[in-house]
């Protein structure tokens, strides 16, 4: 009884097709009236949002507005928190990821995630990148090698690390570590890549590299990025959602949000009048 396999047939892993995407059109995630409570306090008040396939969607808003909470709801990372209550649904493909009988582990394999602080594991660079495949039971060396190289190339770090794949990942610089984490996030060929303020712990040069990488990945992956940095959102994203106090105030094309927003609050925020 595995509803997941029916809903999302696992594509066979073949070296040549591993990172090739099929369609770029349509909706990747559909969030419908999604509410979330931490114990008694409500963190999200009915979010409605459609995330477009193959595009970069940015979530902006002041601290504590619920943008990270929303992002972490997209791969059910919030499940780790006790006393969490949710309402509403998030559809991925044609099923509700909060519906009954959903295999959370299989779901997370379809949602790569990059965190605020680079968090490579205490393993070699190689082992870090192929970790998602290893936990999935892939042992064939040729597949692992292929995926490792492709992921590292996609994350624009292959040339820097190709000669020291067996060294500890903890010996890399912060920016390299973060790009390694991106490589790890895309190694299992996810449909969506979630990024939770991926540049906030990095210096400007490393940040520029990550932003460039995001631009390169656009089209290949559906990317949702949470950021504090409005210039970054303007630079890298196709669509932007502005959140405030647990509500999605405005969501639309990035150009619109930053040049002629419809809502007063959005205007105030993007022009720097509060936040």
């Amino acid at each position: 009884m595995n509803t997941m396999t029916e809903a999302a047939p696992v594509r066979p892993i073949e070296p040549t097709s591993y990172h090739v995407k099929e369609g770029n059109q349509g909706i990747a995630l559909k969030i419908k009236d999604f509410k979330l409570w931490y114990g008694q306090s409500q963190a999200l008040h009915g979010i409605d949002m459609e995330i477009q396939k193959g595009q970069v969607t940015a979530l902006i808003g002041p601290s504590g507005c619920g943008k990270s909470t929303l992002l972490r709801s997209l791969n059910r990372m919030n499940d780790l928190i006790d006393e969490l209550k949710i309402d509403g649904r998030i559809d991925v493909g044609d099923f509700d990821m909060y519906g009954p009988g959903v295999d959370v582990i299989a779901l997370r394999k379809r949602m790569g995630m990059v965190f605020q602080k680079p968090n490579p594991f205490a393993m070699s660079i190689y082992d870090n990148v192929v970790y998602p495949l290893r936990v999935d039971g892939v042992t064939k060396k040729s597949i692992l090698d292929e995926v490792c190289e492709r992921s590292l190339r996609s994350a624009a770090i292959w040339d820097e690390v190709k000669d020291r794949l067996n060294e500890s990942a903890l010996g890399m610089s912060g920016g390299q570590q973060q790009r390694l984490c991106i490589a790890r996030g895309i190694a299992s060929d996810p449909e969506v890549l979630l990024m939770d303020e991926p540049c906030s712990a990095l210096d400007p040069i490393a940040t520029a590299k990550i932003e460039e990488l995001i631009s390169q990945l656009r089209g290949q992956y559906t990317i949702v990025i949470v950021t504090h940095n409005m210039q970054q959102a303007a630079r890298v994203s196709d669509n932007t959602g502005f959140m405030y106090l647990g509500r999605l105030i405005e969501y639309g094309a990035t150009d619109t949000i930053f040049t002629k927003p419809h809502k007063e609050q959005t205007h105030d925020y993007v022009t720097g009048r509060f936040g």
Partner: protein
Amino acid sequence: MANPEDSISTAAIGVSTGKPATRTGGKRVRSFTADLSAVGEPALWGFGGALAIGIILIAGFLAIIAWNGFTTFWPKPIEQVELVDGTVIAGEPTRYNTFTVGESVLARLNDAQRQEIEDNFGFANRTLYKTANFDLYGDDFTWAADFDIANVERPSGYYLFERQQWGTFVGFPASLVIGGEETAYDQGLMQREQRAARSRFADIRRLERRDIGRINHNQERARLDSRKALLQYGENDPRYLARVEVNNARIAELQNEFVEVQQRISDIRAIDSQYRVILEEVNGRTVDTNLSQIVRFYAANDVNWFQQAGIYLSRWGEFLTTEPREANTQGGVLPAIFGTVAMTMLMVVFVAPFGVITALYLREYAKQGKLVSIVRISVNNLAGVPSIVYGVFGLGFFAYTMGTTIDQLFYAERLPSPTFGTGGLLWASLTLALLTVPVVIVATEEALSAVPRSMREGSLACGASKWQTIRYVVLPKALPGIMTGMILAMARGAGEVAPLMLVGVVKLAPALPIDGFAPFIHLERSFMHLGFHIFDVGFQSRNSEAGKPMVFVTTLLLLGLIVLMNATAIYVRNRLKKKYAGSQF
């Protein structure tokens, strides 16, 4: 009292605020040196002093043990002491002290001596001589007060003999008996013959231990097999009778072998008794002893520094590699070293999985609530329970309850003599594992909680299950911390004695827990332990003065052993740390 500094600051304020200097009327003097209490100097001296006292205490303690331990085996000269009353004693001066002279002693002294003691406020000095020759005098030591000594010499020719039995002998070799013929003493001859005699002695011991041990073991097995058949089939069953017949034949066959070995032993003994040495002590009394009984001998006042060093090293060698003799006060401590190490290792084998699994459940899986808090507090409190209580528990639960059950189920033929139903290596290790498990749990929990949350999330976001996350990410990262807990547990366990006395440690174990008979590792056997050895040698033996130096040597060895085991563990931990080290950015 115009302070120049004050006026400057006033002027400065006046300029910057544009106000006249009314606020700083000149009363407050600005000081650029902080208050003494604010700097923390008095506290610093206090803390530093406390640390210094601690270091001095530890260093002093180690220095005393090291000094006494390391000097014990160094050969000392033999003094021949002539007392005022005409008696002559000879022995090694072992220690000196000051004592209050009693009335009855004072009464027999002359005026000059009495005056001298009075000038010393009633005290006098005395020396303890290790006169040895226990078989002749019934005592190993003699006190000689300074006022009783007429003359002290260190004459050449005195020998010290260390014997297999009866302890040491101080005196001269009078003559030798070689192959039954009495000849005059010659040092070279004696050295050669003593070496040959020692190898005969080793032969006898090997025959007794290995061959007779094997025969006894097999006879016992045959006897137990008969008894097992009796318990299984009943008295009149033909299968039982058949088995008994086979076993009895085997026992008889072994008995013949036994007689044969005994014959070989008595042959060697007969040769051995033809090689003897006649020893003479200072007052002319002689002792006739087999050369094979002499473990070591040297001319105490005639050896040079290199020979002394040789004797010193040979004594350490004997100490570390042989079995004890003379009620543990002489010889080696090999069985105790073996027992200590084996027990500690076994304890780690038990405590590591148990402690780590418990901590994993408490920290990673259990829902953090009241119940887990209570469990955690209880575990912490367990570390404070007196260790003897664990000994009582180990004896009552492991040995008497579990052991007896095991005996009834698997070793019924050996009853009523217990196999596992009494103290032994297994139960002692388990008891100590129980004693040290709180240490491991606490350390492991701390190590687990120190693994950053972001790492777990990173792993879970990759689609790893909770167990995979723990297995591949959390545990490797926490491993050095877990190892630290293991090291603490080992240090605690290796130094523990009280509970062991109840669950399997003995004064003198007849056999090591590992030998050549299947199943080779005998976890049910009782064993010797260095900690208990110290207690036994120093305070339980017939001749505690003779055991005193051994206390320090054994203490030194125990400390060294614990340091060695911990250093190994720390080395392993640091290797692991290096493996997972690196900048977190």
